């Protein structure tokens, strides 16, 4: 294990991370803490890139900072006034000041323990980690990007369940129904941006999807970018953010897992075991799955942002209030 000297950049990033997190949690107003949280997300993306995890950096930037930020800001915008900073606590406070001190002390003790264990664990890292196995089995997986191989072939079942988690969250949000996103003014900057930003986003999403097979990228990053395109559409006044309505929308929502399941059942009934792609066609099958997964993720994330299914009737194109 060569001594990996940490450079000045690492110190900077670490300090930035911790400061931003602390500031986000203790900011006076909600708006400030959300803005700080988005900044924290971007710095995290930088850290992932520094730690040689490009796929994760892309996903963090698009989903972690981008979309979560958008969701938080919408939640903030629907809130009529600022003073609701300290809304009635819902029983999660632990007995006033002494509670705070006790919690802080105990949490920091546990953290020290884990830190010491990390220190102890890190140094004798056996080389027997799964990286070796992934490397040797990579050429069987049909893709050359190891992360995509793990995501869509070796641990495809995890990704299947993760898409189910996304669908579950969406169904939960839709079942809550309730208030239409009451955004009023159409953002002039967004309308002007819409002209060229949306096609660019769609293009990069397509590129991300394609390049995922042999370089950092993949279904999640592409899906997030498509969702970003939808968000911009919505800000520019399109009430249903470019989404189809009714049955087509529902089919799109389930298309990601649907393809995964049909593939899995087809191989399972073929006697090869669930999701065991035939080695010759693995690459193409993975691309097919990723295509539909991207669409499904994009539709799901946009609907989470909208908060409910868009109405059926199309609004007039003049960007008037829906």
């Amino acid at each position, binding site marked *: 294990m060569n001594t990996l000297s940490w450079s000045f950049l690492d110190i900077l990033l670490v300090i930035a991370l911790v400061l931003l997190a602390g500031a986000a949690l203790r900011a006076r107003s909600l708006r400030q803490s959300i803005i700080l949280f988005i900044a924290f997300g971007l710095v995290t993306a930088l850290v992932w890139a520094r730690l040689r995890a490009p796929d994760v950096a892309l996903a963090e930037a698009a989903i972690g900072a981008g979309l*979560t930020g958008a969701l938080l800001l919408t939640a903030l915008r629907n809130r009529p006034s600022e003073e609701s900073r300290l*809304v009635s606590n819902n029983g999660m406070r632990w007995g006033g000041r002494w509670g705070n001190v006790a919690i802080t002390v105990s949490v920091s003790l546990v953290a020290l323990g884990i830190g010491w264990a990390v220190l102890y664990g890190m140094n004798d890292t056996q080389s027997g980690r799964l*990286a070796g196995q992934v490397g040797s089995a990579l050429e069987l997986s049909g893709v050359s990007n190891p992360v995509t191989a793990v995501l869509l072939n070796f641990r495809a079942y995890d990704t299947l369940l*993760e898409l189910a988690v996304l669908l579950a969250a*969406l169904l939960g949000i839709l079942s809550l129904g309730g208030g239409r996103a009451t955004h009023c003014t159409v953002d002039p900057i967004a309308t002007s941006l819409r002209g060229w930003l949306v096609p660019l986003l769609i293009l990069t999403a397509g590129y991300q999807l394609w390049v995922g097979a042999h370089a950092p990228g993949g279904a999640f990053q592409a899906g997030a970018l498509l969702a970003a395109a939808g968000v911009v559409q919505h800000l520019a006044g399109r009430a249903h953010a470019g989404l189809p309505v009714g049955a087509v929308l529902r089919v799109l929502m389930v298309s990601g897992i649907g393809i995964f399941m049909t593939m899995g059942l087809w191989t399972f009934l073929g006697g090869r075991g669930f999701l065991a792609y035939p080695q010759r066609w693995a690459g193409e099958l993975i691309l097919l799955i990723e295509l539909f997964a991207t669409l499904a993720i994009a539709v799901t994330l946009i609907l989470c942002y909208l908060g409910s299914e868009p109405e059926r009737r199309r609004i007039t194109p003049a960007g008037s209030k829906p």
Partner: protein
Amino acid sequence: MIDTGVLYGLTGVALAAMGFRATLLEPEVIRKLLAINIMGVGIFLLMIATAYTGPDTAADPVLHALVLTGIVVAVSATALGLALERRRRDKDGS
């Protein structure tokens, strides 16, 4: 001795602790969700730090896949939490 992986690992643990503490103590629901996200990033940082094996050799792809899944799960949970919070405020008109 401290190398890059351990440095980021310890930062991850610190972030997770900050997030955990804030989740328990913050009364405001949206801040709680922020805190949970920060805690998530902390744990993911710990995972990616263990995956990091030096500037030249390739990092452990399995951990990267796990963190990717974790990020998507975190965003879906946050989206559901925000929707519940919005519905809660619509109900009592605050």
